């Protein structure tokens, strides 16, 4: 199954068909989600209007972890089955994931000021999230630190796999240590414990973030394939 998509020409064809659809889906989902979240949902009885940060913060935080996990899976596939496309997908995911992580940290801080009275506290959830940002940045630094791109890809793939340990730590940090941050109320074993008027816009936004990720991923993979082609063409030119 995988091998069918591993062929870059076929991938490029499928990608160019899928891309506009995904773009429209993103815009639609984000539009409805934002409208519902910002104008059509109640302010929280405890948190007031600042609760609306949630509609960006929570999906961004989910995506930060999701992107890292996908990156690790792609890197693993690239390492074991030597799939060039998987390597490229991992590489293309990193900056997106880093941005989501940054967004989660940033909106979290914004939210923290009214809620906890400070931009930042050094607790387990926030810290492990910061570590995640550094894992992303370390990956990006490592993949670019080699003269030979193939070397960079392999080295950084191993790094992602080792760093994967951090993801469960982020997820369960609120359960294992008592932190300021509130525990999971959507993604938990016994079903969500959040009011439906807030749940819906949240889920829409989460979906929008996901389609946005796929959209950017397609664009970046195509760009990467093309720039590789250019590199090879240049090599061919100079080597005569």
């Amino acid at each position, binding site marked *: 199954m995988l091998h069918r998509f591993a062929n870059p020409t076929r991938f490029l064809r499928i990608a160019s068909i899928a891309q506009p659809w995904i773009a429209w889906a993103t815009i639609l989902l984000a539009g409805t989600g934002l409208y519902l979240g910002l104008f059509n949902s109640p302010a929280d009885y405890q948190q007031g209007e600042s609760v609306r940060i949630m509609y960006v913060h929570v999906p961004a935080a989910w995506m930060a972890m999701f992107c890292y996990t996908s990156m690790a899976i792609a890197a693993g596939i690239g*390492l074991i089955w030597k799939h060039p496309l998987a390597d490229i997908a991992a590489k293309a995911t990193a900056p997106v994931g880093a941005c989501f992580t940054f967004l989660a940290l940033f909106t979290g801080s914004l939210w923290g000021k009214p809620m906890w009275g400070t931009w930042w506290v050094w607790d387990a959830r926030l*810290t492990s999230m910061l*570590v995640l940002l*550094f*894992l992303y*940045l*370390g990956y990006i*630094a*490592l993949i670019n*630190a*080699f*003269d*030979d791109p193939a*070397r960079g890809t*392999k*080295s*950084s793939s*191993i*790094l992602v*796999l*080792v*760093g994967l340990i*951090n993801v469960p*730590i982020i997820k369960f940090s609120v359960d294992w240590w008592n932190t300021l941050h509130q525990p999971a109320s959507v993604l938990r074993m016994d079903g969500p414990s959040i009011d439906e008027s807030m749940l819906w816009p949240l889920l829409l936004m989460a979906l929008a973030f996901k389609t946005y990720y796929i959209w950017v991923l397609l664009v970046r993979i195509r760009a990467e394939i093309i720039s590789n082609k250019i590199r090879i063409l240049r090599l061919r030119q100079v080597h005569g």
Partner: protein
Amino acid sequence: MNGFMTVLKRDLHLAIRQGIDSMTVVMFFVLIVIIFPFGVGPEPNILARVASGVIWVAALLASTLSLERLFQIDYEDGSLELLSLSSVALEVIVLAKVTAHWLTTGLPLIITAPLLAVLLNMNKEGLLVLILALVVGTPSLSLVGAVGAALILGARRGGVLLALIILPLYLPVLIFGVSAVDAIINGFEAKAQLLILGAFFLAALPLCTWAAATSIKQAIE
């Protein structure tokens, strides 16, 4: 097993011949700890409060710096290729080199740490737990660091890059190492933290050996 001992002996041999190496790491460790009061001011109660943290951070940094050359020199002079071509599994060789590294740098740090702790006004119970925590924690540092050292082989900016990669991974050791000491100082038990450090080591042992060996294999392609 024979391969393990041969490589371990050779690495210890090299370290002893080069004489000042573990001294250098210890001195760097001491230096960082001593430099710190210059930064935060010399009040004893603040110092005592941050003592365990400073010592752990210094140990982290000393370990990072000393790890940079763990495989680098063998890589550059062609030994690593030959080692990987020997009939001994690369994982065993990695383990032997990590052991040698810990014996020549981790151990001296553990021996020095109590002195520094006293200098920073740490009390006796704290001291004991600090040593225990270092004994359980520093092997993990060497193991995790070995992965970093293997990953950066052939990269352009070694030292800083290595630090960037492994410091985030060191954080669990730092957090539990410090909190073990703080727990005891504040009159709680430190057993849980020490157990977690031990578990971390047991998890790191196979994972890091594998990851380091794999990265070395692809570095010498």
